[in-house]
């Protein structure tokens, strides 16, 4: 079990403060949603939390050690990040691509074994790509490539998963199936943090939320308490109202 702690982290891009003294901890079995307008710093925050960007102020610690001092391979064994976009300039097959998720678990000279293959195939099946393992990645559709990137993260199988807009390019059914799977992974003990653009999905599938207002201010807390029409209207700079549906709430933008 791993934890990722962010303490008094400030991120500046140029003269703009994206977040000011942000403090939060991603624990096992927690499901976080990050919500915020375009350009509010969601991706920059995830990259900083993964140690891909240098820190200027504050700290990010994985299991008590500053993330930038841990070897990348050791980070990758525990912490995964689904990037917003993937690109493959060179021809690779779907199976080769998804097997790259095993990289941090393999010694330098070892080859992927039966077990790695089984994990990779299971991940492909989970993303409904099991018929396509011999296809070239370049021939896949946008949604299929997105599912392949997610399957690669599942193959990596880290204790903590950060996902940058995992629902991009996915159709309605695959969106729901993915969120259900991520919810289950949280129930099984994984720490999951994802950037979402729909507060309703955050409410349904996540326990905790981080709101990034884009001016350096932020709020975090349980989804039920934090997600209100006032906050969301401020967050997106657009009036949002709430409907009641049974015991649940649905947010919709004003017309």
């Amino acid at each position, binding site marked *: 079990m791993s934890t990722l702690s962010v303490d008094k982290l400030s991120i500046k891009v140029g003269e703009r403060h994206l977040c000011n003294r942000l403090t939060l901890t991603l624990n096992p079995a927690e499901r976080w949603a990050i919500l915020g307008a375009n350009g509010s710093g969601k991706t920059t925050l995830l*990259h900083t939390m993964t140690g*891909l960007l240098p820190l200027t102020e504050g700290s990010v610690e994985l299991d008590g050690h500053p993330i930038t001092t841990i070897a*990348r391979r*050791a980070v990758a064994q525990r912490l995964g990040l689904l*990037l917003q976009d993937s690109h*493959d*300039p060179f021809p690779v097959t779907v199976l*080769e691509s998804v097997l790259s998720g095993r990289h*941090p678990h393999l010694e330098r000279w070892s080859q992927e074994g039966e077990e790695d293959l089984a994990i990779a195939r299971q991940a492909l099946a989970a993303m409904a790509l099991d018929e396509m393992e*011999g296809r070239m990645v370049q021939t896949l559709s946008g949604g299929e490539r997105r599912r392949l990137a997610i399957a690669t993260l599942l193959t990596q199988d880290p204790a903590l998963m950060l996902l940058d807009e995992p629902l991009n390019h996915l159709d309605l059914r695959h969106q729901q199936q993915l969120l259900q799977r991520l919810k289950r992974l949280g129930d099984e003990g994984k720490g999951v943090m994802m950037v979402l653009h729909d507060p309703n999905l955050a409410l349904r599938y996540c326990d905790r939320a981080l709101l990034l207002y884009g001016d350096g201010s932020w709020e975090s807390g349980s989804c039920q308490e934090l997600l209100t029409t006032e906050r969301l209207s401020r967050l997106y700079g657009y009036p949002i109202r709430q409907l009641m549906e049974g015991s649940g709430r649905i947010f919709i933008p004003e017309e």
Partner: protein
Amino acid sequence: MKSLPLFTLLSLLAILAMLVALMAGSVAISPAELAAILAGEGDGIGREIVLQLRLPRALAAFAVGGLLALAGVQMQVLLGNPLADPYVLGISGGAAVGALLALLAGAATLIVNGAALAGALGSMLLVFGLAHGSGAWSPSRLLLTGVVIASGWGALISFLLAVAPQHNLPGMLFWLMGDLSHADQATPALLILLLGLLITQPQARNLNLLARGELQASVLGVTVTPLRLQLYLIASLLTATAVTIGGSIGFVGLVVPHMLRLLIGSDHRRLIPASLLFGGTLLLLADTLARSLIAPQQLPVGVLTALVGVPLFLYLLQRGYRQ
């Protein structure tokens, strides 16, 4: 194709090309004579030709082809661009300016080689320094810097050709087109080729990841910065060695990695050794043709690599990627 038959096939092709290279030329040597010579027998002249002239040149051709193909694989991954070749960052341009200056001064082969090496390494340091300047070292910045420096070398080369006296021009043009007729020392090139392989092969799986972008590689556990530095230095060293021996032989470094990607896929654990073997074989064949087609006159080998490579590549492109 599985790895064992693949590498058996590639090795057999290399050996076959080597035997052809030893037999073909202005003085034809029959297989029986060759067998006798290799067994340590045979008459004086044939023995002299094979062991003193053809064998060193054939080995040098193989080494240069291997160096260029290996450097091509590394440059393509380093720059994240399938169109990159070993010369894209200006190393061959720098070498050419050095060599042409030496040729203009009427220097001996050894000095020309030294000047080419100095030009190549100088260009490599220049590009590295400029691209590294402000600390940011993105593939696109490196590529742009290299391409611009290469254009600068191109202008200098044209200038040197324009002002060169008539009698110096053929030698200079041969150098530019790539020419192995002065390649009589294979050992240094073979050693550097071996060194390049030994340093690159352990990184093969890391290269698979780096080929999919710096961020993805880093996320999956690759320490990107030192790996990219290593790729730059080793690819530059391999290229500098190749151009010092053979001039700017085109095509091999760009197209051999591609041909093999079409044939065996992009897994660098196989692609690196396969490129080395196939690049070496291709250049060896091209050089054999270059010196036997209109023997005793010799053609610049760079012309032949393209003549052999273009149809082969187009055929593979038509055929499409392996399924």
